[in-house]
């Protein structure tokens, strides 16, 4: 466990020195810019739009970091051959992988926390009323990122960064549309095709579950029950993907 933390903290340090938190500057500029632009709208609509836009930007920046840093977590180590000196230490491979994963998770949590604080400040300054739904929405965005990083890490344990990025982005897009797979599967009569669609529905992450942005923006309450179920789903899904990633990583040769 101690070694996982050592690797995680080093990964976090790497992320910081790679200037990943620079995205925060863009996030800040976007928030300021949008509040200026939306200033001309009526108070009620402005609040909704600002919430919507803020949550969406937190989501987009998070996903970009999750995918593009996530795919490099392992493949970059292999490509730059830094992995040799690590694997040569008494640390099981799975611990290395979990450490790298946790490091990026830490980076993302810090990043999202800063974005959330900035977002809430802007809302407060704009005289917009706040509610707990916003925090819930941001929490679920973070959970979605954890799932995406796990998927990115899993792909990068066996394929190139370019392919990993492609696959991960594809899964991200499909992940938001899995509901359609289910509907389609139920409507089709061919048992084989509908079976395949059903398997895909359960195998792919159902990312739409994590998306409560518009509810939060419109002040529609998000029940604690829903939150609990979704968090459990996210954690279970992430854990399963990481188990697969560890298994692949354990078996592969580093030529």
């Amino acid at each position, binding site marked *: 466990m*101690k*070694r996982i933390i*050592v*690797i995680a903290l*080093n990964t976090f*340090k*790497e992320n910081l*020195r*790679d200037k990943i938190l620079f995205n925060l500057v863009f996030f800040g500029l976007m928030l300021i810019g949008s509040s200026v632009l939306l200033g001309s709208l009526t108070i009620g609509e402005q609040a909704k739009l600002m919430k919507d836009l803020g949550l969406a930007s937190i989501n987009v920046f998070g996903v970009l970091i999750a995918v593009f840093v996530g795919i490099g977590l392992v493949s970059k180590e292999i490509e*730059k*051959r*830094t*992995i*040799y*000196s*690590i*694997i*040569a*230490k*008494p*640390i*099981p491979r799975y611990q290395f992988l979990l450490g790298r994963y946790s490091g990026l998770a830490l980076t993302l949590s810090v990043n999202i926390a800063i974005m959330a604080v900035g977002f809430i400040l802007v809302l407060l300054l704009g005289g917009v009323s706040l509610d707990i739904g916003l925090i819930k929405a941001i929490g679920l965005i973070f959970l979605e990122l954890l799932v995406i990083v796990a998927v990115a890490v899993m792909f990068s344990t066996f394929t190139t960064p370019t392919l990993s990025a492609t696959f991960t982005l594809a899964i991200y897009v499909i992940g938001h549309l899995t509901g359609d797979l289910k509907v389609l599967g139920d409507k089709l009569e061919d048992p084989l095709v509908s079976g395949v669609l059903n398997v895909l529905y359960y195998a792919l992450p159902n990312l739409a579950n994590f998306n409560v942005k518009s509810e939060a923006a419109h002040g529609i309450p998000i029940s604690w029950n829903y939150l609990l179920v979704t968090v459990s789903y996210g954690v279970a899904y992430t854990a399963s993907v990481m188990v697969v990633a560890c298994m692949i990583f354990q*078996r592969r*040769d*580093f*030529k």
Partner: protein
Amino acid sequence: MKPLRIKGLTKEYRTGFSRRSVMALDHLNLEIEEGEVFGFLGHNGAGKTTAIKLLMGFVYPTAGEAWILDRSIRDVDVKQYIGFLPESPFFYEYLTAEEFLVFYGQLFGMGGLVLAKKIDELLELVSMTDARHRPLRKFSKGMLQRIGIAQALINDPKLVILDEPMSGLDPIGRRDVRDIILRLKHEGKTIFFSSHILPDVEMICDRVGILVKGRLKAVGTVQEIAGASSVTSIELVVEGLSEGALAGVQGLDTTLIRRGDHVLIKLDDEAKVNGLLDQILKHKGRVVSLLPHKRSLEDLFLTESGMNRT
């Protein structure tokens, strides 16, 4: 308890779409004695790095097994006793020398004063105390190699495995690495290193193994491998010999080259050297130098590799 025992270690890679098989290492058997410096020789692509990667658990063997200090290499904990320097080391370039050593020390479960003291000691050993707070990104190749050696020693290993520790270094850098290896031997560590730079190997290794196309062709001391008849020719430089005396010397199957007062005499047969010396002394000549030309490990290496230059 041997520091390293390798039995039938084999690695076959399958490459490309045709899954063509390439035998990178073919049934390697080897035992390393405690406290020795063992040089693992071979051309690029002979399988040295593959063997080391197998030992370190980067790749898995197709067949065979190896033990480090009587524990299987499959046991991750055995790495507690190994220090490893990868070939042309690449490390986390965003870390400073000190942070880098702290990080690797922590992976061994080290920390606090013990680690801090060890780091001071190692930076001193590899003469990098000045570069302590510099990021690795700004290091030269020689400096990276030295900090690489420092990280390999952070856990005070019993067995040190170095993959091409001298490649890409200038003569001074090579000498530094050589000195460090000898110092480690002096401290009682066992050193296993691969190289294709032969003079270095000849100078510091107790034993060497020669690997050709994945197979171990020879193991032994440099003398054993090079053989007793390793002297191929002898060159003498003499002065003060008259023309008449030189004519007599020429009768002994020699080649003469005149350089002013000095005459260089080349003799192809070691057995005739005493006769020649008698002649020279009899004619009141003076021997300036006598230099036996040995069949170097390099020549031997080329013969073993089937790539003899002649």
